[in-house]
């Protein structure tokens, strides 16, 4: 309960500071939107030259992209920890975090929330509905529930990767730019994995499970039965990777010695 109330207090505080620079706040949302439009334009233009992408039609690819946006939005809103090493370890801010009464990872997440990213959920839903209708997809009564579970699973998978990498900072203080690299690898998950070669497909499934953010869960709603096993593994992968990453984080915190004075 304490965690929940802390969460809402931080959220309200965040809204106050963000609405101070209102123009910029909307500009941020707009530029996110623009980014999504660019990715859609890419898909549309590409399909002006081909009918199928390894057997996936234009609407299916758009659906996958729309689905991807939702876990990605959840992840970006709450796991904005790509600069954790610079911001907390190098500057010694982690000392302050450890004096707080809530779990250190939760505290960091609260301080770094970026709620405007949640707008991606709206765009994602619009895209999904648009492509779902043009594909004439049928919904079972339990599909919305599965949808939420898969979206959360995907977001957790994404978060797990970034938490695990942020934890590296506890062991080595070498300045790493692995984080931006991960964002770029994450883009691989937006397209069907069968366009990649075997090694990349394996990595995207079992090492850096980005495929569970986009194509795997989306294939359930697209009724691609050959991928069902992967689709239903989404929440399992999400939760288990996340548990492992929190474990790594906790181990890292034990090792944390502070930064100088």
């Amino acid at each position, binding site marked *: 309960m304490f965690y929940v109330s802390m969460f809402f207090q931080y959220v309200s505080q965040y809204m106050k500071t963000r609405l101070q620079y209102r123009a910029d706040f909307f500009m*941020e949302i707009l530029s996110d939107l623009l980014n999504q439009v660019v990715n859609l334009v*890419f898909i549309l*233009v590409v399909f002006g030259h*081909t009918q199928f992408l390894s057997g996936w039609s234009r609407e299916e690819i758009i659906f996958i992209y729309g689905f991807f946006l939702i876990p990605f939005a959840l992840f970006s809103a709450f796991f904005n920890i790509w600069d954790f090493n610079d911001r907390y370890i190098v500057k010694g801010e982690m000392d302050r975090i450890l004096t707080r009464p809530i779990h250190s990872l939760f505290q960091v997440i609260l301080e770094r929330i970026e709620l405007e990213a949640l707008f991606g959920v709206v765009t994602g839903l619009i895209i999904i509905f648009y492509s779902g209708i043009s594909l004439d997809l049928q919904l079972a009564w339990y599909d919305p529930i599965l949808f939420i579970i898969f979206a959360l699973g995907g977001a957790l998978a994404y978060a797990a990767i970034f938490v695990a990498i942020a934890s590296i900072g506890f062991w080595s203080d070498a300045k790493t730019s692995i984080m931006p*690299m991960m964002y770029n690898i994450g883009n691989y998950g937006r397209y069907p994995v069968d366009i990649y070669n075997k090694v990349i497909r394996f990595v995207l499934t079992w090492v850096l499970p980005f495929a569970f953010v986009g194509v795997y869960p989306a294939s359930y709603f697209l009724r691609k039965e050959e991928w069902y096993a992967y689709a239903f593994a989404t929440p399992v992968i999400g939760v288990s990777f996340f548990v492992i990453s929190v474990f790594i984080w906790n181990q890292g915190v034990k090792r944390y010695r502070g930064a100088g004075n």
Partner: protein
Amino acid sequence: MGKYLAMIRMRFLMMLAYRTDYYTGILIYSINIGAYYFLWNAIYGEKSSIEGLSSMQMTTYVAVAWMARAFYFNNIDREIATEIKDGKVAIEMIRPYNYLGMKTMQGLGEGIFRFFFFSIPGMLLVAFIFPIELPHEPATWGMFGISLLFSFIINTQINLLTGITTFFLYNNAGLIRAKRVIIDLFSGLLLPISFYPVWAQEVMKYLPFQGISYVPSMIFTNGYSSGEIAMALLQQLIWCIILIIPIQLLWIVAKKQLIIQGG
């Protein structure tokens, strides 16, 4: 002139001091090139060519477009924005050089550094991993070089314009991000301009963006005839000149209504 050369040199040396950051940069670009490589392979499927580009040319296009980006890309818009917000710009403006000229030179120093330590090794790495065809004619390399210089100038001019808007908007992080996305799309980095529907191509003809990435990449992949190369280079040159006008105008207005926020 000497002071501007010194600026280029200083920025180059500064980048050299932090060069390890760039090794991961090369990896990031290679990852992006890889993503597009697989994507384009799937798009080409059985087709031997789309819009006059073979699948091999397309891979080359993607590779050279990204590696050229390492040269022309810079963050001087963000730097200008920070200097305005911190109030540092007041001191910069009383110094005996042209502020915008100095920023351009810093960008050039950064570009030259990245060209040697990022683009060239990156291109070698990428050529090693993916099937890429490098141009055979020395003249093509020469034209590519000239066109790349123009693309640096056009991109830098657009960055200056974006940076100057901070004088009016105070906080323009969103605008800077939006500009970056627009350039990625309209410059031909993600998609060759010739792939767009005809109406979109018509519109883009009247915009400066394709001079940033499309022109040098097309020259490099032998996608242009020699007549087209001449036209494209001329177009780039014209944009370099035209863009000076809005920059100067905005700069004059900006100086008049400058408010230093602290500093």
